[in-house]
């Protein structure tokens, strides 16, 4: 078993046993579910809107070269500097270079999972830059020196008490517990940072090919400030995040908000096209767009799973996933948690190293059902399992299936085996759950089913003596 799988298993066991944590997540998600269903219900047809969104994404992803070139040509014409990064290192180095060239000292960030993916904060800090996350949830987990717990709700695992503690410890804040008071502490502090920052880094929710603009979705206004006050704006965008036109956003913005946060539209949905233009009084004078591949073209090359690139990172599949709801976001140990993470992480970081993620699924299909862009996540999890086994069949599986095949092919052997098992089962009671038990991983937390006194075969023959 590989290291990341071992760590995953330990963490998952620990988190799943934390009943308070589970209650907290259940409670947080219950409110989300009510609002999500209310806003879905406002659509004249959510099902058709979903198929339309899937069709638009299918069109764009399957002509990605065309749309990317159109997008880049248009955004460059608006004064953006576009950098194509084939991996995380190239992206980090370019951003560090921009920071150095401009003698930036103080960097403010708005929420971006893509920058988490390339571990940008660590790289900037190591190079001596001060970096502040401005999204409240991200700011809290940054203070706690933790990765985001959820791609949309980074601090959903924390209580107000824990947040108050970290504010007191790291910010010498007043010992307040009220969410409003805590939010205001962060607001006041961030105001000073925003006014001092010379570089702002953001993610991108959608790239609009038609007009050469990026769209950023948020609730707090921190992305608006990040892109308004500092003199340099760097946006980091996965190459798959495109839509055809501005008008496509009329569908995608409400769907993202509904599926992701249970809102009809999030508070700020903003299109940016490059740096400030002649005649505009504020905004950054430089705009850099980093286009990131980092394994996305590998997903594109897997024609079976190409639609995983339709993902708009709404987080809906995490919210409905029984695994996520039990083990939480930190147990995964990767940037993208939940079903979508278990589909794409093996592509981004290596199938054999991360094959435990697709196996950690009940295949209930809730993710497939909820995905606003129609990604068949549950099937992709199965395909990842199949591909992992095909790449490197586990020895134990091979032995087990060899034995199973033998039993199935020889009825006398099957009858003999079942008879023996029925006879020996009482002996299993003596070692059940101990180190001697060959079934221990199963029996340590579960009951072993008892063999029936009479086998189905014997029972059937007794009922139908003529057959």
């Amino acid at each position: 078993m590989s290291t990341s799988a071992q760590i995953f298993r330990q963490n998952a066991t620990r988190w799943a046993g934390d009943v308070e944590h589970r209650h907290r997540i259940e409670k947080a998600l219950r409110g989300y579910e009510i609002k999500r269903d209310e806003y879905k219900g406002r659509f004249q047809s959510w099902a058709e809107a979903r198929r339309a969104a899937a069709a638009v994404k299918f069109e764009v992803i399957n002509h990605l070269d065309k749309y990317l070139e159109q997008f880049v040509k248009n955004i460059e014409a608006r004064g953006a500097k576009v950098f194509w990064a084939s991996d995380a290192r190239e992206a980090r180095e370019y951003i560090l270079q921009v920071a150095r060239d401009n003698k930036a000292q103080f960097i403010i960030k708005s929420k971006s999972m893509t920058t988490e993916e390339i571990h940008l904060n660590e790289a900037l800090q190591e190079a001596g830059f001060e970096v502040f996350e401005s999204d409240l949830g991200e700011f809290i987990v940054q203070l706690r020196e933790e990765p985001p717990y959820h791609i949309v709700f980074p601090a959903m695992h924390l209580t107000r008490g824990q947040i108050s503690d970290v504010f007191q410890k790291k910010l010498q804040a007043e010992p307040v517990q009220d969410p409003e008071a805590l939010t205001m502490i962060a607001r006041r502090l961030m105001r000073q940072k925003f006014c001092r920052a010379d570089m702002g880094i953001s993610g991108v929710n959608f790239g609009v090919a038609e007009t050469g603009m990026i769209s950023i979705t948020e609730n707090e206004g921190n992305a608006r400030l990040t892109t308004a006050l500092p003199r340099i704006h760097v946006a980091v965008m996965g190459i798959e995040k495109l839509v055809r036109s501005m008008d496509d956003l009329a569908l995608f913005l409400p769907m993202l908000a509904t599926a992701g946060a249970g809102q009809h539209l999030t508070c700020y949905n903003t299109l940016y096209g490059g740096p400030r233009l002649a005649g505009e009084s504020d905004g950054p004078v430089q705009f850099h767009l980093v286009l990131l591949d980092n394994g996305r073209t590998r997903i594109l090359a897997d024609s079976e799973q190409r639609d995983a690139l339709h993902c708009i990172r709404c987080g809906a599949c995490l919210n409905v996933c029984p695994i996520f709801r039990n083990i939480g976001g930190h147990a995964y140990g990767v940037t993208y948690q939940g079903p979508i993470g278990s589909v794409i992480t093996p592509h981004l970081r290596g199938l054999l190293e991360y094959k435990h993620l697709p196996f950690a699924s009940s295949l209930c299909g809730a993710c497939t059902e909820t995905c606003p862009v129609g990604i068949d996540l549950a099937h992709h999890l199965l395909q990842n399992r199949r591909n992992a086994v095909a790449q490197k069949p586990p020895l134990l599986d091979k032995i087990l299936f060899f034995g199973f095949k033998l039993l199935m092919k020889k009825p006398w052997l099957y009858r003999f085996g079942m008879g023996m098992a029925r006879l020996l089962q009482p002996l299993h009671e003596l070692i059940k759950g101990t180190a001697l038990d060959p079934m221990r991983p199963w029996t340590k937390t579960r009951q072993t089913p008892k063999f029936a006194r009479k086998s189905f075969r014997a029972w059937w023959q007794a009922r139908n003596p003529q057959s």
Partner: protein
Amino acid sequence: MNGSREKILGCIREALKTAAHPPEPGGKPLPSPAPAPPQFRQWLPRVGESFEEQCQLFASNAAMLRAVFERVPSAAAAAEKINQIARAEQWEKIATHRHPLLDEVLQRVEVARLYTDNKYALEELEACPAAVTACEALVAQTGSVLVSSHACGGRAVSILPPHHLVVASASQMAPDLLSAFAIVRQKYEGHYPSMLSFITGPSRTGDIERILVLGAHGPKQLTIILVG
């Protein structure tokens, strides 16, 4: 310097040589070709056709979002409203920008002004308790205000001061996001401002125990005054 442009485009073209399996959400094949945006209207939330219906929808959305929406008959009435708020909140200086409707309203408002159309000092804007701006459109379907860096005083004025007050004219009411995009397309085609922002209610967060708090980073209050 454009990095690995050719390499990435090469990988994409190589990958796309194999056709993909289209997903079938809900067990039905995807519409092909992908729907044109005007078709989206039949699936998105319904919006009434008359101005009155749209105004009502906007008002109910605004209320739900905890924004304040007021309809007034004239610029003078709008000015009176702003004066009331200015007195109640003891504004000493407001941030604003040049715009025919705003000029007409604000000439009757007796509060000092910081104009953000031209170069301004950030500290001065930060010190303003309120901003009064125009907008590009109002969106009935979502209760949103569309502002731009070109016509609404730049990027910072609508996000930095704690109270954002929008003055709109009745002709700016758009039924949905598609119509709002049509308005800016017609106005700017090919020369879009560097920022277009849909503002849907006052700034908010739910990052602490999923409890709603207004005024996370942006304005705590959003007031929309519709003239006419």
